[in-house]
């Protein structure tokens, strides 16, 4: 049986890749992809704990987290569409004033 810590290590690896991606990338679309990667690594943790402690609560919470990740991505893209209408490109380094 695979020990639980391997699953947690994999999810920590995915989370740190997402963290690096968020800190490094400038374009908004890639930022949302990295946020989704971090959320999915959290989901992997939830499901791993749920199956390794023989309870179903983790999987139910993973379901809720997937729905909220979708809602967050939708709002993120709506915001980037509004930004794109103003600046013709989404370069997160140049967005430094809240009121454009």
């Amino acid at each position, binding site marked *: 049986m695979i020990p639980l810590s391997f699953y*947690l*290590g994999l999810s920590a690896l995915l*989370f740190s890749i997402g963290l690096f991606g968020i800190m490094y990338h400038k374009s908004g679309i890639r930022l949302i992809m990295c946020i989704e990667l971090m959320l999915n690594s959290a989901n992997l943790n939830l499901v791993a704990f749920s199956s390794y402690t023989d309870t179903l609560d983790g999987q139910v919470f993973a379901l809720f987290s997937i729905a909220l990740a979708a809602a967050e991505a939708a709002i993120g893209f709506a915001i980037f569409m*509004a930004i794109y209408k103003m600046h013709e490109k989404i370069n997160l380094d140049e967005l430094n004033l809240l009121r454009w």
Partner: protein
Amino acid sequence: MQTKKLAAFGIAVLFLAVLGLGIFGTSWNTVSELPENFEDPSNVEGIGMLIFTHYVVPFEVLSLVLLATLIGAIYMAKGEESK
């Protein structure tokens, strides 16, 4: 440009090291044998029962959140004529 990349990479690797130490250091008290439920293999029935008995309130609140997200996203992404 290069320093930003190295700084970001360093922070991510440090974070991974701290997390990895924590994960591989602790002994998780897990069940000895992975649960193998033959009459409900994909435990969809179990999740369904759990959602509608134990987690009803979060489930309904989640639908409200998704509805608000839908309305907000549509309003924000409105076309030119909304100005």
